[in-house]
């Protein structure tokens, strides 16, 4: 069988790329090494609770906004039931010193709420929100009217960073902490993340916040239906061992079971450091290989899944951010720092909350002692360490007393992120987007080898889908894709 395209990696970016290509008549095979597509976003079910592992909520899902448009264009919207987060408090903040408040949706509401707490900074808050919108509007798939060539593509790499903008505008440290806390959505601290990218990937959450009934699993199901309808060949449980060809062009992929698939082009959505291992030595230049291997990853995290006897229902329409002296807006481990808490639906009744997903950002070094061990074969002392971490996290959660009895269901560590998400370095999101770091672009010097994935554009549902549009736009025509998106809006 000969295909026009092989897409390596069946996560959101790979599924989006395969759909885009198939929609435009390209014979496409999508190859995923896990037994099913999108294992991260799919989540898992345990103790009668649906736990989301990769998707918790999204900005940009209101009609007319970018993510909504992407989903509509790809025919994913109809089977999905979108649920709105609480407009008067989509994220609730609780600080260690006792201060708490709810962040509402919409610039005007945010300004009004925050100006009550920080009256002298009203103008600065309004300016900040305006700047977020203006910065996001310079990106061509966010602003469909924007001239594609208007700005050097890598302009944002030079900054300013989010921290520089926060320091320029705000005086109250608490106000900076509030805005910096959303760095958990991309995993780069405020001193690292270019303001323009923070604007693209966090800015939309200030206008609208939504989830899907049934969570990430419902999203994956919608993708699977659309992929089949579009005629995409799906190979799961089949890992790619080698991209075949040379620096003049790829001609196929070899799977670990030895089968070779002949293709006219390849789109790889793997971690850039893994890409280098999939090709022969002379494929790329030495400096490119070195750059891909040395890309810095985002913060890592502990992700704690707990079932609750009486979970507060509001957790299904608001997240809780427990901010405890997190220097630089990012956590440092189970003892202090930020906890991001999302509700988990009961399997039998998705309108009721049955548990929580607790993300505690930490350094990947936390589990470095066991880095030689692999998924499924960890030593006993690693399990003791995990039990101790679970106890610490449970203790912090007791401070949040609305839950009744809480029981630990699972704990993911930096090693889980590394092995389960194929994420060398164990980053919560993979490769970091930071000032001064040149991430890969969709095109490589090998003419028919293209890249997509969070490293290319950005994290989250929006960033990964965007990476597929940026990638496929290079072969389908950016102007054609943008025109089709416009007609769909």
């Amino acid at each position, binding site marked *: 069988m000969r295909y026009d395209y092989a897409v390596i990696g069946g996560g959101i970016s790979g599924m989006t790329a395969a759909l885009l290509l198939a929609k435009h008549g390209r014979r496409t095979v999508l190859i995923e090494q896990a037994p099913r597509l999108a294992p991260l976003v799919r989540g898992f079910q345990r103790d009668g609770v649906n736990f989301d592992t990769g998707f918790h909520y999204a900005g940009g899902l209101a009609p007319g906004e970018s993510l909504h448009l992407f989903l509509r264009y790809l025919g994913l919207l109809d089977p999905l039931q979108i649920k709105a987060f609480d407009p008067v408090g989509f994220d609730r903040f609780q600080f260690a010193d006792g201060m708490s408040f709810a962040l509402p949706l919409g610039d005007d509401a945010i300004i009004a709420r925050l100006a009550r707490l920080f009256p002298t900074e009203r103008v600065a808050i309004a300016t900040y929100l305006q700047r977020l919108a203006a910065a996001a509007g310079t990106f061509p798939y966010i602003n469909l009217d924007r001239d594609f060539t208007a700005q*050097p593509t*890598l*302009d944002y790499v*030079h900054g300013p960073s989010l921290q520089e903008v926060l320091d320029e505008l705000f005086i109250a440290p608490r106000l900076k902490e509030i805005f910096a806390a959303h760095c958990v959505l991309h995993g780069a601290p405020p001193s690292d993340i270019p303001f323009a990218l923070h604007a693209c990937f966090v800015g939309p959450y200030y206008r609208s916040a939504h989830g899907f009934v049934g969570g990430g699993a419902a999203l994956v199901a919608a993708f699977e239906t659309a992929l089949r309808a579009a005629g995409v060949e799906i190979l799961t449980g089949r890992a790619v061992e080698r991209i075949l060809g040379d620096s003049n062009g790829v001609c196929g992929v070899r799977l670990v079971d030895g089968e070779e698939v002949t293709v006219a082009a390849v789109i790889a959505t793997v971690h850039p450091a893994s890409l280098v291992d999939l090709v022969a030595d002379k494929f790329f*230049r*030495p*400096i*490119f290989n*070195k*750059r891909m291997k040395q890309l810095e990853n985002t913060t890592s995290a502990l992700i704690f899944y707990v079932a609750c006897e009486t979970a507060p229902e509001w957790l299904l329409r608001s997240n809780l951010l427990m901010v405890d002296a997190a220097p630089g807006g990012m956590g440092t481990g189970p003892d202090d720092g930020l906890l991001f808490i999302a509700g988990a639906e009961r399997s039998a009744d998705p309108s009721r909350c049955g548990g929580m997903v607790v993300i505690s950002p930490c350094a990947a070094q936390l589990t470095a002692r066991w880095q030689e061990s692999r998924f499924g074969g960890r030593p006993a002392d690693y399990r003791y360490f995990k039990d101790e971490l679970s106890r610490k996290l449970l203790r912090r959660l007791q401070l949040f007393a609305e839950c009744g009895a809480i029981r630990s269901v699972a704990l993911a560590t930096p090693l889980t992120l590394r092995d389960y998400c194929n994420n060398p370095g164990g980053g919560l999101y993979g490769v970091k987007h930071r000032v*001064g770091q*040149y991430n890969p*672009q969709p*095109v*490589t*010097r090998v003419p028919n080898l293209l890249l997509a994935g969070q490293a290319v554009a950005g994290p989250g549902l929006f960033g990964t889908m965007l990476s597929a549009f940026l990638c496929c736009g290079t072969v389908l025509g950016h102007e054609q894709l943008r025109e089709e998106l416009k007609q769909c809006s």
Partner: protein
Amino acid sequence: MTEQEVVALINSSLAEEFELDLEDMDADADIFDDFGLDSLDIVDMVIVLESAFKFKIREERAIRKIRKLGEIYTFVLGKLNEAEQAS
């Protein structure tokens, strides 16, 4: 750093990271036609120069206009001069 040292460092760094022949490193050489670089290699060229000379290159438009190796010499010498005057 003398001008010759700067030129030598540019030549050796680019030769190593782009697998070029040191003997071909001539100021008149066209980096695209003679060295086979393409526009995608520019980012990596920036990274090679940044790490060789420990400065940040923010002049993306200027860098993208470069065609001759000699223009890289001029660009880097200019950056080093600027830095020297600033300090």
